[in-house]
Protein backbone atom coordinates (compact mmCIF):
# COMPACT_ATOMS: atom_id res chain seq x y z
CA UNK A 1 0.00 0.00 0.00
CA UNK A 2 1.19 3.46 -0.79
CA UNK A 3 0.88 6.29 1.61
CA UNK A 4 -2.33 8.10 0.82
CA UNK A 5 -0.68 11.44 0.19
CA UNK A 6 1.53 9.92 -2.52
CA UNK A 7 -1.41 8.71 -4.51
CA UNK A 8 -3.37 11.89 -4.20
CA UNK A 9 -0.29 13.81 -5.37
CA UNK A 10 0.10 11.43 -8.26
CA UNK A 11 -3.42 11.93 -9.48
CA UNK A 12 -3.06 15.68 -9.33
CA UNK A 13 -0.44 15.43 -12.07
CA UNK A 14 -3.20 15.43 -14.63
CA UNK A 15 -4.09 18.92 -13.58
CA UNK A 16 -0.56 20.15 -14.14
CA UNK A 17 -1.04 20.77 -17.83
CA UNK A 18 -3.80 23.25 -17.34
CA UNK A 19 -1.76 25.29 -14.89
CA UNK A 20 1.54 25.19 -16.74
CA UNK A 21 0.48 27.30 -19.72
CA UNK A 22 -0.11 30.18 -17.36
CA UNK A 23 3.31 29.71 -15.76
CA UNK A 24 4.99 29.69 -19.14
CA UNK A 25 3.51 33.09 -19.87
CA UNK A 26 5.10 34.48 -16.74
CA UNK A 27 8.47 32.91 -17.40
CA UNK A 28 8.85 34.71 -20.69
CA UNK A 29 9.58 37.88 -18.73
CA UNK A 30 12.21 36.47 -16.36
CA UNK A 31 15.72 35.56 -17.40
CA UNK A 32 15.84 31.79 -17.93
CA UNK A 33 19.45 31.55 -16.66
CA UNK A 34 19.02 33.47 -13.44
CA UNK A 35 19.19 31.53 -10.18
CA UNK A 36 17.73 32.99 -7.01
CA UNK A 37 19.51 32.09 -3.78
CA UNK A 38 17.74 31.96 -0.45
CA UNK A 39 17.92 30.15 2.82
CA UNK A 40 15.51 27.77 4.52
CA UNK A 41 16.07 26.14 7.92
CA UNK A 42 19.76 27.08 7.71
CA UNK A 43 20.19 25.39 4.34
CA UNK A 44 20.98 27.34 1.20
CA UNK A 45 18.39 26.97 -1.52
CA UNK A 46 18.88 28.06 -5.13
CA UNK A 47 16.32 27.86 -7.87
CA UNK A 48 15.21 29.23 -11.15
CA UNK A 49 11.72 28.98 -12.50
CA UNK A 50 11.66 28.44 -16.22
CA UNK A 51 7.94 27.73 -16.10
CA UNK A 52 8.27 24.34 -17.75
CA UNK A 53 6.18 21.33 -16.73
CA UNK A 54 9.14 19.35 -15.31
CA UNK A 55 11.51 20.04 -12.47
CA UNK A 56 15.13 19.04 -11.94
CA UNK A 57 16.11 18.94 -8.31
CA UNK A 58 19.53 18.31 -6.88
CA UNK A 59 21.15 18.35 -3.49
CA UNK A 60 24.80 19.20 -3.95
CA UNK A 61 27.02 18.11 -1.08
CA UNK A 62 30.59 19.28 -0.65
CA UNK A 63 31.90 15.78 -0.03
CA UNK A 64 33.54 14.53 -3.21
CA UNK A 65 36.64 12.39 -3.28
CA UNK A 66 38.98 15.25 -2.44
CA UNK A 67 37.47 15.49 1.05
CA UNK A 68 37.32 11.82 1.90
CA UNK A 69 38.69 10.68 5.24
CA UNK A 70 39.58 7.15 4.17
CA UNK A 71 40.12 5.90 0.59
CA UNK A 72 36.91 5.31 -1.33
CA UNK A 73 34.50 6.40 1.38
CA UNK A 74 32.93 9.11 -0.80
CA UNK A 75 32.16 6.53 -3.47
CA UNK A 76 30.68 4.19 -0.86
CA UNK A 77 28.51 6.96 0.53
CA UNK A 78 27.34 8.06 -2.91
CA UNK A 79 26.29 4.51 -3.74
CA UNK A 80 24.30 4.33 -0.50
CA UNK A 81 21.96 7.03 -1.84
CA UNK A 82 18.33 5.91 -2.13
CA UNK A 83 18.91 2.72 -0.14
CA UNK A 84 16.75 1.65 2.82
CA UNK A 85 15.80 4.47 5.13
CA UNK A 86 13.97 4.37 8.43
CA UNK A 87 10.99 5.90 6.66
CA UNK A 88 10.72 3.62 3.63
CA UNK A 89 12.58 0.83 1.92
CA UNK A 90 14.59 1.39 -1.24
CA UNK A 91 12.15 -0.77 -3.19
CA UNK A 92 9.22 1.35 -2.07
CA UNK A 93 11.04 4.56 -2.93
CA UNK A 94 11.82 3.18 -6.36
CA UNK A 95 8.26 2.06 -7.04
CA UNK A 96 6.73 5.26 -5.71
CA UNK A 97 8.97 7.47 -7.81
CA UNK A 98 8.23 5.32 -10.87
CA UNK A 99 4.56 5.75 -10.18
CA UNK A 100 5.04 9.51 -10.20
CA UNK A 101 7.15 9.33 -13.37
CA UNK A 102 10.28 10.52 -11.61
CA UNK A 103 13.91 9.54 -12.07
CA UNK A 104 16.35 9.41 -9.16
CA UNK A 105 20.11 9.35 -9.57
CA UNK A 106 23.30 10.20 -7.76
CA UNK A 107 26.76 11.13 -8.94
CA UNK A 108 30.20 11.67 -7.54
CA UNK A 109 32.89 14.07 -8.66
CA UNK A 110 36.18 15.17 -7.15
CA UNK A 111 34.38 18.04 -5.42
CA UNK A 112 30.82 16.95 -4.78
CA UNK A 113 28.33 14.22 -4.16
CA UNK A 114 25.14 15.10 -6.03
CA UNK A 115 21.71 13.57 -5.44
CA UNK A 116 19.35 14.27 -8.30
CA UNK A 117 15.71 13.87 -9.17
CA UNK A 118 13.76 14.68 -12.33
CA UNK A 119 10.00 14.74 -12.08
CA UNK A 120 6.76 16.48 -12.93
CA UNK A 121 6.47 19.90 -11.43
CA UNK A 122 3.66 19.14 -8.96
CA UNK A 123 5.56 16.34 -7.25
CA UNK A 124 8.16 18.65 -5.74
CA UNK A 125 7.27 17.88 -2.07
CA UNK A 126 7.59 14.13 -2.56
CA UNK A 127 11.06 14.40 -4.11
CA UNK A 128 12.39 16.98 -1.66
CA UNK A 129 11.37 14.52 1.04
CA UNK A 130 12.97 11.58 -0.78
CA UNK A 131 16.30 13.40 -1.22
CA UNK A 132 16.14 14.69 2.35
CA UNK A 133 15.60 11.17 3.68
CA UNK A 134 18.83 10.08 2.01
CA UNK A 135 20.72 12.64 4.08
CA UNK A 136 19.18 11.97 7.47
CA UNK A 137 17.44 8.60 7.48
CA UNK A 138 19.58 6.15 5.51
CA UNK A 139 20.18 3.03 7.61
CA UNK A 140 23.59 1.97 6.18
CA UNK A 141 22.85 -1.72 6.80
CA UNK A 142 26.00 -3.88 6.49
CA UNK A 143 24.36 -6.60 4.40
CA UNK A 144 22.97 -3.96 2.05
CA UNK A 145 26.56 -2.93 1.41
CA UNK A 146 27.56 -6.54 0.71
CA UNK A 147 24.54 -7.32 -1.44
CA UNK A 148 24.12 -4.12 -3.45
CA UNK A 149 26.53 -1.26 -2.82
CA UNK A 150 29.78 -3.20 -3.18
CA UNK A 151 28.61 -4.67 -6.49
CA UNK A 152 27.88 -1.27 -8.02
CA UNK A 153 31.20 0.00 -6.71
CA UNK A 154 33.19 -2.85 -8.22
CA UNK A 155 31.31 -2.45 -11.49
CA UNK A 156 32.35 1.19 -11.70
CA UNK A 157 35.92 0.36 -10.72
CA UNK A 158 36.03 -2.22 -13.49
CA UNK A 159 34.55 0.22 -15.98
CA UNK A 160 37.26 2.73 -15.12
CA UNK A 161 40.06 0.19 -15.34
CA UNK A 162 38.85 -0.98 -18.73
CA UNK A 163 38.83 2.57 -20.12
CA UNK A 164 42.47 3.52 -20.66
CA UNK A 165 41.66 7.16 -21.44
CA UNK A 166 39.77 7.64 -18.16
CA UNK A 167 42.46 5.78 -16.26
CA UNK A 168 45.19 7.97 -17.71
CA UNK A 169 43.27 11.09 -16.61
CA UNK A 170 43.07 9.61 -13.08
CA UNK A 171 46.79 8.89 -13.18
CA UNK A 172 47.59 12.43 -14.33
CA UNK A 173 45.41 13.85 -11.53
CA UNK A 174 47.17 11.75 -8.93
CA UNK A 175 50.63 12.95 -9.95
CA UNK A 176 49.36 16.51 -10.34
CA UNK A 177 47.74 16.86 -6.91
CA UNK A 178 48.88 13.78 -4.94
CA UNK A 179 46.26 13.62 -2.18
CA UNK A 180 42.98 15.54 -2.11
CA UNK A 181 42.13 16.38 -5.71
CA UNK A 182 44.47 13.61 -6.83
CA UNK A 183 42.69 10.79 -5.00
CA UNK A 184 40.93 8.30 -7.26
CA UNK A 185 37.28 9.00 -8.09
CA UNK A 186 36.28 5.41 -7.34
CA UNK A 187 36.79 3.15 -4.34
CA UNK A 188 39.64 0.98 -5.62
CA UNK A 189 39.38 -1.20 -2.51
CA UNK A 190 36.59 -2.13 -0.14
CA UNK A 191 39.10 -2.49 2.67
CA UNK A 192 38.26 0.80 4.35
CA UNK A 193 34.51 0.71 3.76
CA UNK A 194 32.38 -0.58 6.61
CA UNK A 195 29.42 0.33 8.77
CA UNK A 196 31.54 2.79 10.76
CA UNK A 197 33.48 4.71 8.11
CA UNK A 198 30.58 5.29 5.70
CA UNK A 199 28.03 6.60 8.27
CA UNK A 200 30.91 8.54 9.86
CA UNK A 201 31.68 10.30 6.59
CA UNK A 202 27.94 10.87 6.08
CA UNK A 203 27.71 12.68 9.41
CA UNK A 204 30.70 14.85 8.42
CA UNK A 205 29.45 15.93 5.00
CA UNK A 206 25.66 15.83 5.40
CA UNK A 207 25.50 19.03 7.40
CA UNK A 208 23.48 22.19 6.92
CA UNK A 209 26.27 24.51 5.85
CA UNK A 210 27.77 21.88 3.59
CA UNK A 211 24.80 21.19 1.33
CA UNK A 212 22.70 23.21 -1.04
CA UNK A 213 19.36 22.43 -2.60
CA UNK A 214 19.24 23.46 -6.26
CA UNK A 215 16.23 23.26 -8.51
CA UNK A 216 15.53 24.18 -12.07
CA UNK A 217 11.86 24.57 -12.87
CA UNK A 218 10.53 25.14 -9.36
CA UNK A 219 9.43 28.29 -7.62
CA UNK A 220 11.78 29.55 -4.93
CA UNK A 221 9.02 29.94 -2.33
CA UNK A 222 7.79 26.36 -2.78
CA UNK A 223 11.32 25.01 -2.66
CA UNK A 224 12.09 26.93 0.53
CA UNK A 225 8.85 25.79 2.11
CA UNK A 226 9.47 22.09 1.45
CA UNK A 227 13.14 22.34 2.37
CA UNK A 228 12.11 23.73 5.75
CA UNK A 229 9.62 20.93 6.18
CA UNK A 230 11.77 17.98 5.15
CA UNK A 231 15.38 19.02 5.64
CA UNK A 232 15.32 20.85 8.96
CA UNK A 233 16.59 17.73 10.76
CA UNK A 234 19.89 17.79 8.87
CA UNK A 235 22.49 18.33 11.62
CA UNK A 236 24.49 21.55 11.80
CA UNK A 237 28.23 21.33 11.37
CA UNK A 238 31.19 22.79 9.54
CA UNK A 239 31.62 20.02 6.94
CA UNK A 240 34.97 18.49 6.01
CA UNK A 241 38.06 20.69 6.45
CA UNK A 242 39.31 22.49 3.35
CA UNK A 243 42.88 21.68 2.41
CA UNK A 244 44.23 24.03 -0.22
CA UNK A 245 45.09 22.04 -3.34
CA UNK A 246 48.77 22.05 -4.26
CA UNK A 247 50.13 21.28 -7.70
CA UNK A 248 53.12 18.94 -7.92
CA UNK A 249 53.42 17.48 -11.43
CA UNK A 250 55.35 14.45 -12.53
CA UNK A 251 55.00 11.25 -14.45
CA UNK A 252 53.28 7.93 -13.78
CA UNK A 253 52.93 4.82 -15.90
CA UNK A 254 50.35 2.04 -15.54
CA UNK A 255 50.48 -1.23 -17.46
CA UNK A 256 47.27 -2.24 -19.21
CA UNK A 257 46.43 -4.76 -21.89
CA UNK A 258 43.12 -3.10 -22.69
CA UNK A 259 44.27 -0.15 -24.75
CA UNK A 260 46.67 2.78 -24.74
CA UNK A 261 46.26 6.37 -23.63
CA UNK A 262 48.42 9.31 -22.66
CA UNK A 263 47.28 12.30 -20.65
CA UNK A 264 49.34 15.47 -20.63
CA UNK A 265 48.04 17.80 -17.93
CA UNK A 266 49.07 21.40 -17.40
CA UNK A 267 48.48 23.35 -14.23
CA UNK A 268 45.97 26.18 -14.70
CA UNK A 269 45.82 27.54 -11.16
CA UNK A 270 43.39 30.44 -10.91
CA UNK A 271 39.92 30.32 -12.40
CA UNK A 272 40.42 32.55 -15.40
CA UNK A 273 38.29 32.49 -18.54
CA UNK A 274 41.55 32.41 -20.54
CA UNK A 275 42.20 28.84 -19.43
CA UNK A 276 38.82 27.68 -20.66
CA UNK A 277 39.60 29.36 -23.97
CA UNK A 278 42.98 27.59 -24.17
CA UNK A 279 41.16 24.29 -23.69
CA UNK A 280 38.94 25.02 -26.68
CA UNK A 281 41.88 26.40 -28.64
CA UNK A 282 43.70 23.07 -28.40
CA UNK A 283 40.42 21.25 -28.90
CA UNK A 284 40.72 17.88 -30.54
CA UNK A 285 37.14 16.76 -30.68
CA UNK A 286 35.48 17.56 -33.93
CA UNK A 287 32.37 19.70 -33.92
CA UNK A 288 31.50 18.57 -37.44
CA UNK A 289 30.37 15.06 -38.16
CA UNK A 290 32.69 12.78 -40.17
CA UNK A 291 35.52 15.29 -40.14
CA UNK A 292 38.65 15.34 -38.02
CA UNK A 293 37.96 18.92 -36.96
CA UNK A 294 39.93 22.09 -37.41
CA UNK A 295 41.27 22.79 -33.92
CA UNK A 296 45.03 22.88 -33.36
CA UNK A 297 45.27 19.38 -31.91
CA UNK A 298 42.94 17.68 -34.32
CA UNK A 299 44.95 19.13 -37.20
CA UNK A 300 48.12 17.89 -35.53
CA UNK A 301 47.01 14.27 -35.08
CA UNK A 302 44.89 14.04 -38.26
CA UNK A 303 47.72 12.24 -40.08
CA UNK A 304 47.88 9.44 -37.50
CA UNK A 305 45.15 6.86 -38.12
CA UNK A 306 43.21 5.71 -35.05
CA UNK A 307 44.55 8.41 -32.74
CA UNK A 308 42.04 10.65 -30.99
CA UNK A 309 42.92 13.73 -29.00
CA UNK A 310 40.66 15.46 -26.52
CA UNK A 311 41.43 18.58 -24.51
CA UNK A 312 39.46 19.45 -21.40
CA UNK A 313 39.72 22.22 -18.87
CA UNK A 314 38.68 21.12 -15.39
CA UNK A 315 38.09 23.97 -12.99
CA UNK A 316 38.01 23.02 -9.33
CA UNK A 317 37.23 25.39 -6.48
CA UNK A 318 40.87 26.28 -5.84
CA UNK A 319 42.80 24.70 -8.70
CA UNK A 320 42.48 23.77 -12.32
CA UNK A 321 43.96 21.53 -14.96
CA UNK A 322 44.05 21.66 -18.73
CA UNK A 323 44.58 18.14 -19.96
CA UNK A 324 45.08 16.55 -23.33
CA UNK A 325 44.16 12.88 -23.60
CA UNK A 326 45.53 10.97 -26.56
CA UNK A 327 44.32 7.45 -27.17
CA UNK A 328 44.91 5.01 -29.98
CA UNK A 329 47.38 2.33 -31.09
CA UNK A 330 50.54 2.22 -28.96
CA UNK A 331 52.84 2.60 -31.95
CA UNK A 332 51.33 5.91 -33.03
CA UNK A 333 51.09 7.48 -29.58
CA UNK A 334 54.75 8.49 -29.27
CA UNK A 335 54.45 10.51 -32.46
CA UNK A 336 51.05 11.86 -31.35
CA UNK A 337 52.52 12.89 -28.00
CA UNK A 338 55.37 14.73 -29.73
CA UNK A 339 52.92 16.53 -31.99
CA UNK A 340 50.71 17.48 -29.04
CA UNK A 341 53.63 18.87 -27.02
CA UNK A 342 54.77 20.72 -30.11
CA UNK A 343 51.28 22.17 -30.58
CA UNK A 344 51.19 23.30 -26.97
CA UNK A 345 54.58 24.97 -27.13
CA UNK A 346 53.56 26.79 -30.32
CA UNK A 347 50.41 28.16 -28.66
CA UNK A 348 52.14 31.48 -28.09
CA UNK A 349 52.17 32.11 -31.83
CA UNK A 350 48.57 31.13 -32.45
CA UNK A 351 46.47 33.11 -34.93
CA UNK A 352 43.96 35.63 -33.58
CA UNK A 353 41.28 34.03 -35.71
CA UNK A 354 41.71 30.68 -33.92
CA UNK A 355 41.38 32.42 -30.57
CA UNK A 356 38.17 34.06 -31.72
CA UNK A 357 36.81 30.66 -32.71
CA UNK A 358 37.75 29.17 -29.35
CA UNK A 359 36.06 32.02 -27.48
CA UNK A 360 32.88 31.49 -29.49
CA UNK A 361 32.90 27.77 -28.72
CA UNK A 362 33.53 28.39 -25.03
CA UNK A 363 30.67 30.88 -24.94
CA UNK A 364 28.32 28.47 -26.63
CA UNK A 365 29.16 25.66 -24.23
CA UNK A 366 28.74 27.87 -21.16
CA UNK A 367 25.34 29.03 -22.32
CA UNK A 368 24.20 25.58 -23.46
CA UNK A 369 25.22 24.08 -20.11
CA UNK A 370 23.47 26.81 -18.18
CA UNK A 371 20.37 26.38 -20.28
CA UNK A 372 20.32 22.63 -19.72
CA UNK A 373 18.03 21.78 -16.83
CA UNK A 374 20.09 18.90 -15.54
CA UNK A 375 23.81 19.44 -16.16
CA UNK A 376 24.19 22.91 -14.70
CA UNK A 377 22.87 22.07 -11.21
CA UNK A 378 26.15 20.80 -9.78
CA UNK A 379 28.14 23.87 -10.81
CA UNK A 380 25.48 26.15 -9.33
CA UNK A 381 25.45 24.17 -6.07
CA UNK A 382 29.22 24.19 -5.80
CA UNK A 383 29.35 27.96 -6.28
CA UNK A 384 26.60 28.53 -3.71
CA UNK A 385 28.40 26.45 -1.08
CA UNK A 386 31.62 28.31 -1.72
CA UNK A 387 30.45 31.89 -1.96
CA UNK A 388 26.76 31.95 -0.97
CA UNK A 389 25.87 33.41 -4.36
CA UNK A 390 24.83 31.58 -7.49
CA UNK A 391 27.10 32.12 -10.48
CA UNK A 392 25.22 34.16 -12.98
CA UNK A 393 25.93 33.03 -16.45
CA UNK A 394 25.98 36.62 -17.77
CA UNK A 395 29.11 37.27 -15.71
CA UNK A 396 30.82 34.16 -17.09
CA UNK A 397 29.94 35.14 -20.64
CA UNK A 398 31.13 38.69 -20.03
CA UNK A 399 34.40 37.24 -18.74
CA UNK A 400 34.77 35.23 -21.93
CA UNK A 401 33.95 38.24 -24.07
CA UNK A 402 36.67 40.22 -22.32
CA UNK A 403 39.28 37.65 -23.36
CA UNK A 404 41.66 39.06 -25.94
CA UNK A 405 44.37 37.30 -27.98
CA UNK A 406 46.94 39.14 -25.84
CA UNK A 407 45.49 37.96 -22.54
CA UNK A 408 45.34 34.39 -23.88
CA UNK A 409 48.98 34.58 -24.93
CA UNK A 410 49.90 35.91 -21.50
CA UNK A 411 48.05 33.02 -19.83
CA UNK A 412 49.74 30.54 -22.16
CA UNK A 413 53.14 31.86 -21.13
CA UNK A 414 52.26 31.39 -17.45
CA UNK A 415 51.08 27.79 -17.77
CA UNK A 416 53.90 26.70 -20.07
CA UNK A 417 56.47 27.78 -17.49
CA UNK A 418 55.30 25.14 -14.99
CA UNK A 419 55.86 21.40 -14.79
CA UNK A 420 53.42 19.16 -16.61
CA UNK A 421 51.80 15.98 -15.28
CA UNK A 422 52.04 12.94 -17.49
CA UNK A 423 49.87 9.84 -17.13
CA UNK A 424 50.53 6.83 -19.34
CA UNK A 425 48.34 3.73 -19.54
CA UNK A 426 48.82 0.75 -21.81
CA UNK A 427 51.72 -1.16 -23.33
CA UNK A 428 54.57 0.44 -21.42
CA UNK A 429 57.24 -1.16 -23.57
CA UNK A 430 56.12 0.92 -26.55
CA UNK A 431 54.61 4.01 -24.93
CA UNK A 432 56.87 7.03 -24.43
CA UNK A 433 58.32 8.56 -21.29
CA UNK A 434 57.80 12.28 -20.81
CA UNK A 435 61.37 12.86 -21.96
CA UNK A 436 60.73 11.04 -25.25
CA UNK A 437 58.08 13.55 -26.24
CA UNK A 438 60.06 16.53 -24.93
CA UNK A 439 57.65 17.19 -22.09
CA UNK A 440 58.91 18.99 -19.01
CA UNK A 441 57.63 17.17 -15.91
Amino acid sequence: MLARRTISRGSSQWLAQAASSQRRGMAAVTNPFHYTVGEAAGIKVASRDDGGPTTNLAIVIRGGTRYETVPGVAHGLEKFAFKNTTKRSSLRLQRESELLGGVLSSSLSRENIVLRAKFLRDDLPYFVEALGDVLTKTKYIPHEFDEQVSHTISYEVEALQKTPAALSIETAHSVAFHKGLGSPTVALTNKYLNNITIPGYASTVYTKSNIVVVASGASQSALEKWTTEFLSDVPAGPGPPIVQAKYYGGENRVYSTLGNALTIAINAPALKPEYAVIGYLLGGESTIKWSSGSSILSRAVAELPGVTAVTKHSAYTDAGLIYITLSGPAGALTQAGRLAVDAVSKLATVKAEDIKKAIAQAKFDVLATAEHQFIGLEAVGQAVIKSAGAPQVEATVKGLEAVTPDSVKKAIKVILAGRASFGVVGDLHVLPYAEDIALNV
Partner: protein
Amino acid sequence: MPPLTIAKSILSRPWVQRVMRPMADKYADLAGYRKLGLVADDLIAEENDIVQEALKRLPPKVAYDRMFRMRRAVQCSIAHSLLPKEEQTTPEQDIGYLSPYIAEIENEIAERNELDSLTKRK
Protein backbone atom coordinates in the same frame (compact mmCIF):
# COMPACT_ATOMS: atom_id res chain seq x y z
CA MET B 1 2.95 -21.69 5.24
CA PRO B 2 4.13 -20.85 8.77
CA PRO B 3 2.74 -23.07 11.53
CA LEU B 4 -0.32 -21.78 13.38
CA THR B 5 0.71 -20.13 16.59
CA ILE B 6 -0.98 -18.44 19.49
CA ALA B 7 2.25 -16.71 20.52
CA LYS B 8 1.06 -13.34 19.23
CA SER B 9 -2.19 -13.39 21.16
CA ILE B 10 -0.33 -14.39 24.31
CA LEU B 11 2.33 -11.69 23.95
CA SER B 12 -0.31 -9.02 23.37
CA ARG B 13 -1.92 -9.70 26.74
CA PRO B 14 0.46 -9.02 29.63
CA TRP B 15 -1.49 -11.03 32.19
CA VAL B 16 -1.63 -14.12 29.97
CA GLN B 17 2.05 -13.66 29.32
CA ARG B 18 2.70 -13.61 33.08
CA VAL B 19 0.85 -16.89 33.48
CA MET B 20 2.49 -18.54 30.49
CA ARG B 21 6.06 -17.36 31.06
CA PRO B 22 7.09 -19.98 33.71
CA MET B 23 5.53 -22.75 31.64
CA ALA B 24 7.37 -21.57 28.53
CA ASP B 25 10.67 -21.40 30.36
CA LYS B 26 10.17 -24.91 31.72
CA TYR B 27 9.29 -26.14 28.23
CA ALA B 28 12.41 -24.62 26.69
CA ASP B 29 14.50 -26.21 29.40
CA LEU B 30 12.90 -29.63 28.93
CA ALA B 31 13.37 -29.43 25.17
CA GLY B 32 16.97 -30.25 25.92
CA TYR B 33 18.78 -28.19 23.29
CA ARG B 34 20.31 -25.99 25.97
CA LYS B 35 22.02 -29.02 27.45
CA LEU B 36 23.80 -29.46 24.11
CA GLY B 37 24.94 -25.84 24.16
CA LEU B 38 22.52 -24.69 21.44
CA VAL B 39 20.21 -21.69 21.41
CA ALA B 40 16.61 -21.76 20.17
CA ASP B 41 17.40 -20.09 16.84
CA ASP B 42 19.87 -22.86 16.01
CA LEU B 43 16.88 -25.19 15.68
CA ILE B 44 15.24 -23.20 12.86
CA ALA B 45 15.22 -25.36 9.74
CA GLU B 46 17.69 -23.79 7.34
CA GLU B 47 16.71 -25.69 4.20
CA ASN B 48 14.81 -22.86 2.57
CA ASP B 49 15.66 -19.69 0.69
CA ILE B 50 14.60 -17.26 3.38
CA VAL B 51 16.75 -18.75 6.12
CA GLN B 52 19.65 -19.21 3.71
CA GLU B 53 19.47 -15.51 2.90
CA ALA B 54 19.29 -14.66 6.61
CA LEU B 55 22.34 -16.81 7.32
CA LYS B 56 24.27 -14.88 4.64
CA ARG B 57 23.45 -11.63 6.39
CA LEU B 58 24.72 -12.71 9.81
CA PRO B 59 27.80 -10.81 10.99
CA PRO B 60 30.93 -13.02 10.67
CA LYS B 61 31.39 -13.52 14.44
CA VAL B 62 27.78 -14.57 14.95
CA ALA B 63 27.93 -17.00 12.04
CA TYR B 64 31.14 -18.48 13.43
CA ASP B 65 29.62 -18.96 16.88
CA ARG B 66 26.60 -20.64 15.35
CA MET B 67 28.77 -23.11 13.50
CA PHE B 68 30.78 -23.78 16.66
CA ARG B 69 27.66 -24.55 18.69
CA MET B 70 26.38 -26.89 16.02
CA ARG B 71 29.58 -28.86 15.72
CA ARG B 72 29.81 -29.15 19.50
CA ALA B 73 26.20 -30.36 19.67
CA VAL B 74 26.80 -32.93 16.93
CA GLN B 75 29.84 -34.13 18.82
CA CYS B 76 27.72 -34.51 21.99
CA SER B 77 25.11 -36.37 20.01
CA ILE B 78 27.64 -38.82 18.59
CA ALA B 79 29.14 -39.42 22.02
CA HIS B 80 25.69 -39.79 23.63
CA SER B 81 26.70 -37.25 26.24
CA LEU B 82 25.61 -33.83 27.49
CA LEU B 83 27.83 -30.83 27.98
CA PRO B 84 29.16 -30.14 31.47
CA LYS B 85 26.88 -27.85 33.40
CA GLU B 86 29.02 -24.70 32.98
CA GLU B 87 29.12 -25.03 29.19
CA GLN B 88 25.36 -25.46 28.77
CA THR B 89 23.33 -22.54 27.50
CA THR B 90 21.73 -20.44 30.21
CA PRO B 91 18.30 -18.87 29.61
CA GLU B 92 20.01 -15.44 29.42
CA GLN B 93 22.23 -16.64 26.60
CA ASP B 94 19.26 -18.02 24.67
CA ILE B 95 18.77 -14.99 22.46
CA GLY B 96 17.11 -14.95 19.04
CA TYR B 97 20.05 -13.94 16.84
CA LEU B 98 18.61 -15.22 13.55
CA SER B 99 14.87 -14.56 13.81
CA PRO B 100 15.17 -10.75 13.37
CA TYR B 101 16.94 -11.33 10.04
CA ILE B 102 14.27 -13.83 8.98
CA ALA B 103 11.51 -11.39 9.92
CA GLU B 104 13.25 -8.65 7.93
CA ILE B 105 13.52 -10.83 4.83
CA GLU B 106 9.91 -11.93 5.15
CA ASN B 107 8.89 -8.29 5.34
CA GLU B 108 10.93 -7.49 2.25
CA ILE B 109 9.27 -10.31 0.31
CA ALA B 110 5.82 -9.30 1.51
CA GLU B 111 6.49 -5.69 0.51
CA ARG B 112 7.69 -6.73 -2.93
CA ASN B 113 4.63 -8.92 -3.50
CA GLU B 114 2.40 -6.10 -2.42
CA LEU B 115 4.09 -3.55 -4.68
CA ASP B 116 4.20 -5.92 -7.64
CA SER B 117 0.42 -6.09 -7.70
CA LEU B 118 -0.05 -2.38 -7.20
CA THR B 119 -2.43 -0.45 -9.41
CA LYS B 120 -3.01 3.22 -9.58
CA ARG B 121 -6.31 4.36 -8.14
CA LYS B 122 -8.20 6.48 -10.65
